[in-house]
């Protein structure tokens, strides 16, 4: 096979059985890689009623045909599982170097099943795959774990691991890649923790074969040209990283502030990308083969590390009423080391803060309280005190107190740092995402804020469904190839279709890609329908529908009914958000029982 390595590893931890399988060529052609492989495998192998933290759930890591090639940003890979936070089908995507090196070890996919009796540490060095005692690493923070693995395994290994939060089955825990990139959302760290897997390390020296090297080189040249010409990919991200968005989003009236009670933060300047560059930036850093170099190495008076990214700044900064960039950075370092998703963490703590403000809970914490927030991060990671309740995420936590209206989530996943009252298309994306409120299931920040590919009126609720759907479907393909979504600011689906064809020798048009994206998206939807999700879960919290935004979004609410109805029609679904038989037939998904 060209592009793919043609092999899959399957590890069953119930009996420590390790096997390798040939990659199904039809799976490769129809589902590409990464998220496509993960969603299809999960759909086929994990029944909807399994306990996400039980041994029947699986962790599926997959790279794509462009991974470990010269395609810029091709260091991404994905993990798919049933989420303990949302109970939906779930995939998460990460950068770093683990994915490309896994491919160099000779594989396209790693499926982990069952549960180990004791903590284990897995190593993959091409044909040598071993399950080792991980007890000595258990309980360690992510930085220390990474360091210990580097010392014990020697040169050339790339490490992926969980922190104490994952070990303690915190439902908002991450899997860390190279200690500073992450599979961030959905509590995937808890799934790895439930299997007693502390870390997975890989080493290899192989390279994927390219079908048409000459044409591939031409395509790379053309892609590089666009990346260098585009001001976002060549200037803004290298200069400020993702935090370039802070001021832009605030000026649009979409920066979540004090648990989304306001949409404009008066101190945004103090936590902006410009402030990071002036106060705490040490240097830029990059994932495998990435010219954007959006990662930031930073340092405060007391600590050093990577980040914070835009999402952390919004959720742990303005959304908690905190405007001290050093404090935000330190909370980011701590969360990364303990292995917690800062988006869900910020959304959960802000929920607690508002409940405290309204006297709905005995625990006292005010917006802006840095010390107590830091204390809570440790408590959550250990499930100590109120941290045990917060470790369940904001939805379950607030439901316990009859206050779910203060949990800003969709399907249990906390909202990222874009308020839907300031960006209506973004809100529609949250409502309809198969994994809950996610900013990467269609990136409406492009047309609603950045003018990519063209500027849309961000307050207009009408006529955006088609655009969003194309983005949602296209991003399935981006996650499957697997490359970084930021590169799509510069090049679109036509580039990726041609790159794919030159790498694999399998001819696909840009429309074929969108068709594959639609099929996978719909399959994920069917999984959720069978798991009991319905139109009732395609809903934003009432705050966004009833309480107007502030600042530049003053007076704006999210017009959910109009937008959802248009979206369902544009998808070819019925008024309840269920794909019609004609649509399922068109996608080759007819005959699947999706009834709960």
């Amino acid at each position, binding site marked *: 096979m060209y592009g793919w390595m043609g092999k899959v590893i399957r590890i069953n931890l119930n009996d420590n059985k390790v096997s390798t399988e040939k990659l199904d060529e039809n799976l490769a052609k129809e589902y590409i890689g990464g998220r496509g492989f993960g969603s299809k495998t999960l759909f086929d192998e994990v029944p909807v009623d399994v306990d996400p933290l039980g041994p029947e759930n699986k962790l599926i890591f997959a790279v794509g045909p462009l991974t470990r090639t010269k395609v810029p940003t091709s260091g991404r890979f994905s993990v798919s599982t049933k989420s303990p936070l949302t109970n939906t089908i779930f995939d998460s995507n990460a950068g770093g170097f683990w994915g490309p090196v896994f491919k160099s070890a000779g594989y396209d996919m790693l499926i982990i099943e069952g549960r180990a009796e004791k903590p284990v540490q897995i190593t993959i060095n091409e044909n040598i795959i071993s399950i080792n005692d991980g007890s000595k690493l258990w309980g360690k923070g992510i930085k220390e774990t990474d360091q210990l693995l580097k010392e014990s395994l020697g040169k050339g290994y790339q490490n992926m691991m969980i922190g104490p939060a994952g070990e303690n089955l915190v439902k908002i825990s991450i899997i860390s890649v190279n200690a500073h990139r992450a599979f961030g959302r959905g509590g995937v760290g808890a799934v790895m923790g439930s299997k007693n897997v502390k870390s997975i390390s890989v080493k290899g020296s192989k390279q994927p074969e390219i079908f048409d090297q000459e044409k591939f080189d031409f395509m790379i*040249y053309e892609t590089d040209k666009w990346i260098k*010409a585009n001001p976002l990919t060549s200037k803004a991200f290298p200069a400020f990283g993702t935090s370039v968005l802070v001021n832009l989003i605030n000026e649009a009236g979409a920066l979540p502030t004090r648990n989304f009670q306001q949409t404009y933060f008066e101190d945004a300047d103090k936590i902006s990308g410009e402030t990071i560059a002036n106060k705490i930036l040490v240097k830029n850093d990059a994932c495998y083969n990435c010219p954007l170099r959006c990662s930031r190495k930073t340092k405060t008076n007391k600590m050093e590390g990577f980040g914070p990214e835009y999402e952390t700044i919004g959720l742990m900064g303005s959304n908690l009423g905190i405007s001290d960039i050093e404090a935000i950075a330190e909370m980011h370092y701590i969360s990364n080391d303990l292995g917690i998703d800062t988006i869900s963490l910020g959304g959960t703590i802000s929920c607690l803060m508002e409940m405290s403000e309204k006297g709905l809970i005995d625990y006292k914490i005010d917006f802006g309280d840095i010390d107590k927030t830091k204390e809570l991060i440790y408590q959550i990671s250990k499930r100590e005190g109120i941290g045990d309740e917060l470790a369940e995420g904001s939805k379950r936590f607030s439901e316990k107190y009859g206050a779910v209206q203060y949990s800003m989530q969709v399907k249990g996943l906390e909202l990222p740092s874009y308020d839907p009252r300031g960006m209506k298309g973004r809100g529609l994306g949250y409502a309809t995402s198969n994994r809950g409120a996610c900013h990467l299931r269609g990136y409406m920040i492009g*047309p609603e804020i950045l003018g990519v*590919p063209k500027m849309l009126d961000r307050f207009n609720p009408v006529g955006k469904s*088609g655009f969003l759907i194309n983005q949602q479907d296209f991003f399935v393909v981006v996650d499957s190839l697997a490359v970084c979504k930021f590169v799509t600011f510069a090049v679109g689906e*036509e580039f990726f279709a041609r790159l794919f064809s030159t790498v694999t020798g399998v001819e696909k048009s840009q429309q074929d890609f969108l068709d594959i994206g639609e099929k996978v998206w719909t399959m994920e939807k069917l999984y959720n329908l069978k798991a009991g999700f319905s139109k009732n879960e395609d809903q934003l919290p009432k705050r966004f529908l009833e309480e107007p935004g502030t600042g530049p979004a003053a007076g704006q609410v999210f017009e959910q009914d109009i937008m959802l109805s248009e979206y369902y029609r544009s998808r070819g679904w019925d008024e309840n958000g269920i794909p019609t038989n004609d649509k399922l037939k068109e996608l080759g998904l007819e005959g699947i029982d999706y009834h709960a």
Partner: protein
Amino acid sequence: MHEQFKQVGRDLFLQNAVSSHGGNISVRVGDRIHITRRGSMIHNLTENDIIETGLNEDDSGIALASTELKVHRGIYKSTTATAIVHAHPVNAIALSLDQDVIVPLDSEASYVLHKIPVLSAEHTIGSEEVMNIVSDALKNYKIVMLRGHGSFAIGNMLEEAYQWTSELEVAAQIINIVRSAGINVQEYRKDSDKYEQW
């Protein structure tokens, strides 16, 4: 929506990409199409010139919709486009008469379009033949030319489809100037010989 239609229609005319009553534009929202009225004055579209009809099913709107409705429907069914601009760009039509593919010489169109396939049909207006060949080609290109007739461009919004149309016409104009003036082109682009493979 009317504002977008009006603006794009006017600009197509000003660029010599349509005659006074030529070309047609549409957007898709779900299973509905909004398309210019047959015989409407494209540079001065009124709200009454935008006709709504079904993507799949006929209704009374088809009595008023553009002659090219069939082609628009075919494109929407074959692609995930949500906007279409069909124009009659003068320079591109001239080029299409003796070319199977238009490869721009200028930098911008080279970046954006690389190449524009030229398709040929016996019945060039509103035919099933055109619907099939144009729909198929637009699965892999954002704009194509129908020999002797005009361009079909797709996008996520009208502005995008208009941009490809405008880029094509400027590129074609440059090629025609170069040809008519007999200019000896000094190639400045690496791998430009590969653009035809795009």
